[in-house]
């Protein structure tokens, strides 16, 4: 950290806190409008070094547009963003970023090697690491094959290798497993996990919740261009869970639960016929059973569950519909 501070740049304000030195990307009220449609609406968040971020949202929620704007391919309507505290121009900053958006884009008539050599020239880095990165994604034996002969999974892996060539400060992946078969999805996730383990900051956009849940430490949820949640995955999962119950007389059970401070959002699930209640505090199943038994309600079914991220996500996006 100190070597950053000991080299102050002339004429530039030196920030006093360390956290700012660790900021990779700062987005401030970024907005994109396509005519009447607002694709991204006043989005603000910050990416700190060393974390794995997930941008979560259904298809068409503005994930790719947001990434497109910070990656210099989509023009913003208003707001601003800063790479590495704004010390360099966006295109110079992008040389320190590795990014794949939507589909792998390479020159079809060039081989894997030739394509990666070109990327090295654009990024202004030595091409010594090409083989090493091809090894990471398992494409070393196909390095002299033309890109047009690759399967989608291989193309996507080549794209990851290409994004890693400059040992990026941050790796940005937009729907990296989109359109892949289960084996391909598994391979890509393994690679991402490997890279995350090496300490690289990752920003992963996806509409697949388990993908984000499995890999990310932080999550940003957007829907229709509006940010719904931003924070750690753990905090998002912090609810006490819910219980599913069944008794002879559902109405009596319902009334008993509704007037009790342990529960909220009590309802009867139409599909299963089970009575569902969210817990407001950590209650064990035994305590709950005993409490209801005292009230003369005998349960024929009792299950305590923790909500998955998927349910949380659906909950969040439903509330704001």
């Amino acid at each position, binding site marked *: 950290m100190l070597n950053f501070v000991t080299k102050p740049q002339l004429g530039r304000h030196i920030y006093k806190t360390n956290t700012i030195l660790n900021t990779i990307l700062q987005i401030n009220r970024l907005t994109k409008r396509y005519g009447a449609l607002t694709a991204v609406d006043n989005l603000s968040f910050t990416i700190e070094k060393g974390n794995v971020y997930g941008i979560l949202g259904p298809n068409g929620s503005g994930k790719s547009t947001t990434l497109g704007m910070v990656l210099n391919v989509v023009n913003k309507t208003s707001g601003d963003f800063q790479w590495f505290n704004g010390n360099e121009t966006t295109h110079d900053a992008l*040389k320190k970023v590795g990014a794949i958006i939507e589909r792998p884009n390479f020159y079809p008539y060039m081989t894997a090697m030739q394509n990666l050599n070109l990327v090295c020239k654009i990024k202004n880095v030595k091409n010594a690491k090409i083989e090493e990165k091809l090894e990471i994604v398992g494409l070393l034996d196909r390095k002299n094959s033309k890109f047009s002969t690759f399967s989608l999974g291989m193309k996507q892996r080549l794209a990851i290798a290409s994004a890693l060539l400059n040992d990026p400060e941050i790796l940005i992946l937009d729907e990296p497993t989109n359109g892949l078969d289960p084996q391909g999805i598994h391979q890509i996730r393994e690679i991402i996990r490997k890279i995350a383990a090496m300490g690289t900051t990752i920003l992963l956009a996806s509409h697949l919740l388990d993908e984000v849940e499995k890999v990310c430490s932080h999550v940003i949820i957007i829907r229709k261009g509006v940010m719904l949640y931003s924070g750690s995955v753990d905090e998002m999962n912090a609810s006490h869970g819910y219980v599913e119950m069944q008794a002879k007389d559902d109405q009596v059970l319902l009334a008993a639960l509704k007037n009790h401070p342990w529960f909220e959002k009590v309802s009867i699930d139409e599909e299963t016929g089970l009575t569902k209640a969210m817990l407001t505090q950590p209650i064990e199943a035994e305590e709950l059973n005993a409490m209801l038994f005292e009230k003369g309600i005998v349960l024929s079914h009792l299950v305590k569950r923790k909500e998955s991220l998927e349910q949380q996500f659906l909950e969040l996006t439903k509330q704001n519909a």
Partner: protein
Amino acid sequence: MLRLLNIEFHKLRYSKSTKILTLIYFILPLFIALLASIDFNFIGFNIHVADQGIFNFPYIWHFNSFIISYLKLFLAIVIVSMMSNEYSNRTLKQNLIDGMSKKEFILSKFYTVLAFSAASTVFVFLLSMILGLSFSDYTEFSIIFSELEFLLAYFIKLVGFFSFCMFLGILVKRSAFALGFLFVWWIIEKIVHVVVRFKITHTDSGADSVMQFFPLEATYNLIKQPVTRLNFIQSAANQLQTDISTDYAVHWYSVLIVLVWTTIFVWGSYALLKKRDL
């Protein structure tokens, strides 16, 4: 600048179609030169094209730069597809993400246009030099190196024309459509020419002075046709008592018009790219 040229050259050198078209572009003139320098036995007449004075210094500068400039169409295909392929392969997006600025992208293409034009000009220079030294009636140093402004005009002509192709490639995004558009534009200029000639100015010279401001006509105007300058054509014209004298010189204002168009096309390409969401 070298970095950008290097990047663009890397993109071009592995493309088969680019290689073939470029080879054709440079080999065809060699064939023409070869054909022109051998004897033809044409229905009993011995025609030796080289003896008609087309390879005389300094006329050869004019003649070769005019004839070979027609082959620029082959390179036009290369230029158009090097622009529009970046769209269809979506590699333009990847280039920008990898840290190229939009300005650098356009510059790398424009530098390539300059490089192609320069290579072609050097090629015309060497070819004319060899043909001239072999067949010219005059080989005095001062005569050889006179009228070299035709080579400069040739260079400007190619740069202007290729910049137009580059702009069309970006504008239309599909190589076939861009080349089609080029052809349509050529027809439009011809139609406008006819309209201006017969409806507005009513004179040839008046129409020419209007048409010189259109991009294709402007590039064409840089090097006027050299045929009527040939001795045997002129003597034939004299015998027929017709006046075919044309102003063959390369004029500064023609050069200026093409340079202005080049600037518009390069800047226009940049403006288009900057405005667009990819």
